[in-house]
């Protein structure tokens, strides 16, 4: 386990921070919040140019061949900058499963396009019950000749209006074990019969949609992974995306802490900086401590995935549970210490406050992951 960054990683981090400071200022974040699609093709093109969209793909597929840990360094900076748009959706929800479960032909066709920015993607997994579990996947895909006909509704689909392709988790077989009979289809969003409607979310930096598939025909060659064996692929997607979310949460939390510390030093009340009051100091100390331990678990999780360790699911659940709690507490204190200004729409604190909530909910909240850990102690 490496717990300090090597020279290359330090460079990646510095470069990412500078890039996002220039290319993703809060003015752009707020512009995209107002937008129904929430995606900047100009920014996307620049992200492709610096190699981020294919960072972990092997070079033969147009990638940079870097490690999962390197990727989470980027995610930290993205969380810090409150980057909107389909990065997680494209790379984690679709790029990584194609890389791990796709055929050679699929990898050659899609991965270079993802890496060079031509192909924005997302995953449609959740349905009406809102939980990511095998029972929740009920949308049907029925074989007709060489095609499958997809019919039904998906909810909480991120970035659906920006996406050129949607990876859809559908039920192709009904068996006693709900984890059997799920298949992943990669669908071109220009196909006839796909309707995406915005769900107005609290965290407007992450767009989510209801997507209706009205008898959409998909050729069987667009199946990613094996027929009826899609669930393990989704679990792997969830594992890696959850680690990415943890990295984002730590990065975002550190922005909140730094911003709050600066405010506590500058803001004068009763004739002195409010940061000289112990009650403020102690809240800041708690924010720092929460983020330190969140980072330790997050880095463990990232390393465990990178090393393909059997500990990875434990590490990820522990990290997600802890980071979810930590980010919520840190943003609670951030708003509170800012006082009135922290409660305004104009101040950026609420963006982080809301992101903390949406990130906690995504891929299982703190309570859910704690229960997974409890089961290991059974």
């Amino acid at each position, binding site marked *: 386990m490496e717990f*300090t960054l090597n020279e290359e990683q330090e460079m990646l981090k510095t470069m990412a921070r500078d890039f996002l400071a220039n290319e993703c200022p809060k003015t752009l974040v707020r512009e995209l919040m107002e937008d129904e699609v929430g995606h900047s093709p100009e920014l996307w093109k620049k992200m492709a140019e610096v190699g981020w969209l294919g960072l972990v793909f092997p070079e033969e597929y147009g990638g940079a061949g870097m490690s999962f840990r390197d990727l989470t360094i980027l995610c930290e900076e993205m969380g810090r900058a409150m980057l909107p748009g389909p990065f997680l959706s494209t790379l984690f929800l679709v790029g990584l499963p194609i890389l791990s479960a796709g055929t050679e032909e699929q990898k050659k066709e899609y991965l270079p396009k993802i890496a060079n920015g031509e192909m924005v993607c997302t995953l449609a997994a959740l349905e009406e019950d809102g939980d990511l579990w095998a029972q929740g996947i009920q949308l049907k895909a029925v074989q007709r000749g060489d095609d499958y006909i997809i019919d039904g509704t998906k909810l909480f689909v991120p970035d659906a209006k920006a996406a050129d392709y949607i990876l859809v988790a559908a039920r192709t077989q009904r068996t006693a074990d709900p984890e059997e009979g799920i298949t992943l289809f990669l669908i071109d969003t220009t196909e006839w019969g796909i309707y995406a409607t915005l769900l107005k979310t609290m965290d407007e930096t992450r767009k989510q949609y209801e997507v209706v598939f009205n008898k959409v025909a998909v050729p069987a060659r667009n199946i990613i992974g094996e027929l009826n064996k899609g669930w393990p692929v989704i679990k792997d997607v969830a594992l890696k995306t959850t680690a990415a979310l943890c990295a984002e949460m730590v990065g975002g939390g550190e922005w909140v802490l730094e911003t709050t510390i600066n405010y506590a030093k500058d803001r004068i009340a009763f004739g002195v900086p409010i940061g000289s009051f112990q009650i403020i100091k*102690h809240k800041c100390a708690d924010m*720092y*401590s929460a983020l330190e*331990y969140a980072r330790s678990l997050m880095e463990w999780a990232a390393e465990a995935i990178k090393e393909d360790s059997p500990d990875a699911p434990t590490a990820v659940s*522990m990290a997600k549970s802890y980071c979810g709690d930590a980010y919520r507490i840190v943003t609670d204190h951030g708003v509170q210490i800012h006082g009135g200004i922290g409660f305004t729409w104009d101040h950026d604190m609420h963006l982080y406050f809301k992101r903390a909530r949406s990130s906690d909910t995504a891929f299982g909240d703190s309570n859910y992951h*704690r229960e997974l850990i409890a089961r290991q*102690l059974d």
Partner: protein
Amino acid sequence: MVSNESAKADALRQEVRNWLRENLPKGWGTPEYVLPEPYSKESHERGKEWTKKLYDAGYTGFGYPKEYGGIERPPEEIAIIRQEMARTGTPGGPLSLGLLVAAPTILSHGEEWQKKRFIPKVLNGEESWCEGFSEPDAGSDLANVQTTAVRDGDEWVINGQKCWTSMWEFADWGLLVARTEPDAPRHRNLSYFLFDTTTPGFSRRPLRQMSGEAEFGEMFFDDMRVPHKNMMSEQGRGWYVAMTALQHERSGGGAFFGGAGGADLAGLSDRRSAAIESAVDLAKNTRRYGKVVWEDDVFRQRIAQFAIEAQAMRWSGARITAKLRKGIPFGNEASVVKNFQAEMRERRGDMAMEILGAYSQLVRGSRRAVDEGDWVYDMLRSRGSTIEMGTSEINRNIIAERILGLPR
């Protein structure tokens, strides 16, 4: 991670396991092993013997140069040794204060003769230590020390009182902060001494705490004479030496966590994992209103949280170790580690009381007490853990002011 360990590491692990099997006290880890009365003479002597055994086997004495009796091994080996010891919950012994505070402080501030004279005997268990910092009017405000030291020829004459002294009763040597320049400004008026507890004019008595026992004591100095050469660092620099000592103590997590010491917390956290296991066992073995506690989601969540926090501590320890190896100093971060551990211990104690219900009232020595009353004891004792070595509040001030740069 076990899966990645080389054959060499496995061999060492096996060696340590075999050694422990042969050398641990008879019946260790089973009910037939009877712990000596805590803080008793016997407990103290057994601790010394155990440290000597470990030292002779090359399993302790890490982090010090050979010329001061240190045992030099690669960090990976040290981690394995500590993990194996933590796994069996080996006896810590009353010498941990010497390892935790005296040796590292002497190493960083002592003169050459002091290092050569004192450190080896800490490492091999020959001499035990106590520290005289707190006073009745100098707790969180430690700089308000009133004990005085007045120069008389080649000696200093010490007068005053110390309290909350760990290892007070049998320690062979003591660390002492006393006021040497009555008129100098705060933080520049103290000096730091090493004193022999057999010196005339020194006396001690127990200080009984809310958990019932006298883990701590009070020390009295009545014209106690200490040779000038036993002053550590320069005259008037005692405050800064004391601050180093406190950081060592906090980063080690305190004497009550036993033996791991230093910033390498890997072993320590494994030991906490044993604490998690015991909480799970308690929940599995206890019924409330006819229902097994472990089946109650509220308690499952809380116990799982302890498991998560134990791992968080473990990997934070690994991060600190990695930074130390790169030469990045570890100082004020000790306050983060100390608070986290102490507050976790309090919450764990509280939770145990909720699980135990009516049985939470039965203390050590009572009929029908669960686990010999240890849960109740630990809940009470944990109240001290957020006070000793800097209260949680003082540590939060340190984090806010010295790490985050908030104004004093």
